[in-house]
C-alpha cells in the first residue's frame, strides 16, 4: 500500500502531468495520421526526454503510446484508413457505421472501448503481472506458429461470405510476405536484385495504399461519395445504456485477448484485435452483422488493440524483454535514465512500477475525454467536399508512406497497393485476408521453420506441446464452425456485399 501511494505521489506533480498531457496530445496527432505509428512517435521523441527528469520523460513517452492507438481508430472509422496497423480491425465495423450515418457513435465507442481496454490491461499489469509474463515466456517457435495459424484461419471469417475470393486474397498476402531475405538462411527471395526489397514489403505503406488510396479510387470511379450517401450524418456520440450493456461482453473479452496477445513478444495490437474481433463474432448471437457495422465488433477490436499496450508493458517490466516494437524503444529509454526493467524492478522498486501504472491510467482517461469531446468536430471531416477529402487522403498517404522509412520505394509500394486495392474492391475480393496474410506470414513462416529446426525436422514432436494443441483445436473449430452453424439451421446464406475489410 505504501508503495502504491509513493508511486502515485511521484507522478502527482504538475510537470509530470503536463508532460503526460503533451504526450497524449502528440500521440493523438500521430495516431490520426496514417503512416505515423506509435513506434515512430516514441522513437522520435525519446531523445527529447534526455533533457527532463525520468518521470517527466517516461510520462511523455507513455502518453504518446496510450494516445496513439485510440486515435489510430479515428481515420479507420471516418475514412476507412487505419491510422496505425492496430486499427485495421476497427475499420471493418467502424467505417460501415460511418456509411450508415453513425460516425459519431462509432467514434464514441472507439473512445470508450479503447480506454476500457487500456484500463483492463493496466489492471492485469498491476495485479497479475508475473503469471502473464510466465505465460508469455512459454511461447516458443511452435506456439507462435499455432497462434499465427489460428490467425490465418480467420481469413474465412473476414471474407464476408466470399470465402473462395478471401482465400485467394489471403494466399496472395502470404505470398507477398515471402519477399525479402529468407528468415533462416538470409538468402534474398523475389527481390529481383533490388536491395530495397531485402527487408521485404513494408507493411504500413501497403496498408495505406490498399485502404486509403484504394477507397479514394473507388469513390472517384463511382462518382459518389460516402458522406453524401450518409447525408453527412454524425449522430449521437455516446451509446445508449442498452447498447453499452450488449457491448460489455465483447469489450471485456476483447480486453483479455488483447492483453494476452500483447504480452507475447512480437505479437501486438494488430493481431490481438483481429483475434478478438473473430472471437466476438463467433460467440455473438448476431455474428452475421459483424463487418457490416456491428457495435460489438467495433468495441471488441478497439478494446483489444488497446489492451495490447498493457500486455506489452507487462512483459517489458517483468522480464525486461520487449512485448512489441514500442516497448523495445521504451526499454532503451528506461536504461538511459538508469532504470533497469526486469524482475528486480518489481522486487526493489515497486513504487516505480505503480508510477507507471498511474501514468497509464491518467493517459488512458485523458485520451477518452479527448476522443469523446473531439468526436463531433473530427466527424466534420465527413462534410469536407469529396474532391478535397480525396486529395487530402492522397497527400497524407504519400507523406505517411515516405515518412515511415524515408524511402521513395515505399511511396511506390503505396501507389501500387492503392491500384490493387481499387481492383480488389471492384471485383469484390475482400482486403482483410490479404492484410492478415501480410501481417502473419513472416511470423508464421519463420516460427514454423524454427520449430522444425528444434524438433530436428520431426513434425509429430511438435504435437507434444500443450499450448500449440490448444491453438490447433481452436483453428479446427474456427474452420468447422460454419458447418456446425449450418447444421443448426441458423445460417442464413448471406450474399450481401463484401464488407469494406
Amino acid at each position: 500500500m505504501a508503495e502504491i501511494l509513493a508511486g502515485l505521489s511521484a507522478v502527482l506533480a504538475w510537470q509530470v502531468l503536463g508532460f503526460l498531457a503533451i504526450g497524449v496530445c502528440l500521440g493523438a496527432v500521430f495516431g490520426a495520421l496514417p503512416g505515423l505509428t506509435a513506434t515512430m512517435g516514441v522513437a522520435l521523441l525519446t531523445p527529447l526526454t534526455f533533457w527532463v527528469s525520468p518521470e517527466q520523460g517516461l510520462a511523455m513517452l507513455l502518453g504518446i503510446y496510450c494516445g496513439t492507438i485510440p486515435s489510430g481508430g479515428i481515420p479507420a472509422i471516418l475514412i476507412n484508413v487505419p491510422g496505425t496497423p492496430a486499427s485495421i480491425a476497427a475499420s471493418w465495423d467502424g467505417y460501415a457505421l460511418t456509411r450508415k450515418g453513425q460516425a459519431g457513435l462509432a467514434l464514441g465507442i472507439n473512445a470508450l472501448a479503447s480506454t476500457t481496454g487500456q484500463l483492463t490491461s493496466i489492471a492485469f499489469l498491476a495485479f497479475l503481472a508475473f503469471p502473464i509474463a510466465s505465460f508469455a515466456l512459454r511461447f516458443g517457435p511452435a506456439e507462435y506458429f499455432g497462434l499465427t495459424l489460428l490467425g490465418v484461419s480467420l481469413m474465412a471469417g473476414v471474407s464476408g461470405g466470399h470465402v473462395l475470393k478471401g482465400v485467394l486474397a489471403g494466399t496472395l498476402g502470404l505470398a507477398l510476405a515471402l519477399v525479402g531475405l529468407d528468415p533462416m538462411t538470409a538468402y534474398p527471395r523475389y527481390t529481383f536484385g533490388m536491395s530495397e526489397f531485402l527487408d521485404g514489403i513494408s507493411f504500413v505503406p501497403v496498408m495505406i495504399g490498399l485502404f486509403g488510396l484504394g477507397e479514394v479510387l473507388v469513390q472517384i470511379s463511382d462518382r459518389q461519395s460516402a458522406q453524401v450517401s450518409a447525408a453527412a450524418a454524425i449522430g449521437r456520440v455516446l451509446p445508449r445504456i442498452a447498447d453499452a450493456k450488449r457491448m460489455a461482453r465483447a469489450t471485456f473479452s476483447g480486453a483479455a485477448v488483447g492483453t494476452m496477445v500483447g504480452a507475447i513478444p512480437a505479437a501486438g495490437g494488430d493481431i490481438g484485435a483481429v483475434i478478438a474481433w473473430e472471437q466476438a463474432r463467433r460467440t455473438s448471437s448476431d455474428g452475421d452483422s459483424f463487418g457490416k457495422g456491428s457495435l460489438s465488433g467495433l468495441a471488441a477490436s478497439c478494446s483489444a488493440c488497446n489492451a495490447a499496450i498493457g500486455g506489452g508493458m507487462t512483459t517489458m517490466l517483468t522480464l525486461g524483454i520487449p512485448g512489441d516494437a514500442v516497448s523495445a524503444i521504451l526499454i532503451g529509454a528506461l536504461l538511459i535514465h538508469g532504470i533497469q526493467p526486469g524482475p528486480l524492478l518489481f522486487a526493489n522498486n515497486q513504487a516505480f512500477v505503480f508510477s507507471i501504472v498511474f501514468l497509464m491510467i491518467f493517459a488512458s482517461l485523458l485520451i477518452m475525454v479527448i476522443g469523446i469531446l473531439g468526436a463531433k468536430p473530427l466527424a466534420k471531416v465527413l462534410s469536407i467536399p469529396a474532391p478535397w477529402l480525396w486529395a487530402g487522403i492522397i497527400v497524407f498517404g504519400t507523406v505517411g508512406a515516405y515518412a515511415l522509412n524515408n524511402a521513395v520505394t515505399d511511396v511506390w509500394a503505396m501507389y501500387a497497393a492503392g491500384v490493387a486495392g481499387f481492383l480488389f474492391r471492384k471485383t469484390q475480393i475482400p482486403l482483410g485476408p490479404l492484410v492478415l496474410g501480410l501481417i502473419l506470414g513472416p511470423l508464421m513462416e519463420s516460427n514454423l521453420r524454427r520449430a522444425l529446426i528444434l524438433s530436428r525436422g520431426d513434425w509429430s514432436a511438435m504435437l507434444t506441446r500443450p499450448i500449440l494443441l490448444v491453438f490447433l483445436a481452436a483453428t479446427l473449430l474456427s474452420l468447422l464452425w460454419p458447418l456446425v452453424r449450418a447444421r443448426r439451421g441458423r445460417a442464413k446464406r448471406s450474399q450481401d456485399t463484401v464488407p469494406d475489410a
Partner: protein
Amino acid sequence: MVSRVMASLAEGHLNVPIVCEYKPGASGALAFSFVARRPSDGYTIGHAPVEIAIVRSLGYADIGPSDVSLICLVSKTAPALVVHPDSPWQSFEDFIAAAKAETGNIVMANSGIGSIWHFNILLLEQGTGARFTHLPYGGSAPALVSVIGRHSDAAVAAVGEVISHVRAGSLRALAVFDAGRAGVMAEVPTTHELGYPIGAPAWSGFYGPAGMPAERVAMLADAFKTAFETTEWAEFCRELGMEAHYLGKEDFAAFALEQQRFFESRIPQLVRLENP
C-alpha cells in the same frame, strides 16, 4: 541511438543543428549506399557500424570502407556467450565440452544469419571445434528471449544487450569474446584468457561520401572528439555496456580496412563451415 546521442553532443561545437534520419534495411546497406551517393560537402554523413565492412562480402551492396570518407570511431562492443542460469554449464569449458560431446545437440540462437553476432558463433565453432544447431532470429532481443524461455540453450549477443539480463539473474554469461575484460561484466572471463583468441566486436563510427574535403572531415572529427570526451558520452556507453573508444581518421580507416579484409577472408570459410 549512437547517432542521436552523438549528434546532440556534437551539435554545439558545429553551430549547426544535426538532423538524424533513420534509413533501415539490409544490414545498413541501404543507408551506406544512400550516403555514398550524396554530395561530398560534409553536410550529409552517416553512422558506420561494423556492417559497413561486411555488406560487400554478403553481396547486399557493393560498398565498403574504402568507398567513403571515414571520419572517426567512437565506440566498440564485444560479444558475450550466454546460457540459461538453470543450465548445467557453469563455465565456458563445461559448455564447449558439452557441445563437443554431443555434436549439434546444443541449440544456439543467433540474431540472424550474416549478422555480426552470428559470425562470432561461427568463429567460436571454428576456434573450438564445437558444433551447434543454429536457430536464427530477427535480432538479438528475440534470440535472448528464446534462451530466457528455454526454447534454445545459448546465444551470443553484445555485452550491452545481455548485461541487464545477467544482472537480473535471467541469463548467465560464460565468456566475453575479447582480449580484455568488459567493464560492466568484469567477473566474466574472456575467450583470450581461456586460450581461444577469437572474437569480432561490433563498432560505431561516422563517415561521409567519398572525396569529402580534408578540412571538413577534420572539423567533424574535432566536433565528435569533443563530444566523445564529455561525461555524457562516457555515461551513455557505460549504461549500454559499450566501450567508449576513439580512433581518428587515419587509424579508423586502417582499422576498418583491416576489418573488411578479415571478413572478406573469413566469410567464405565460415559459410562452408555451416554448409559442409
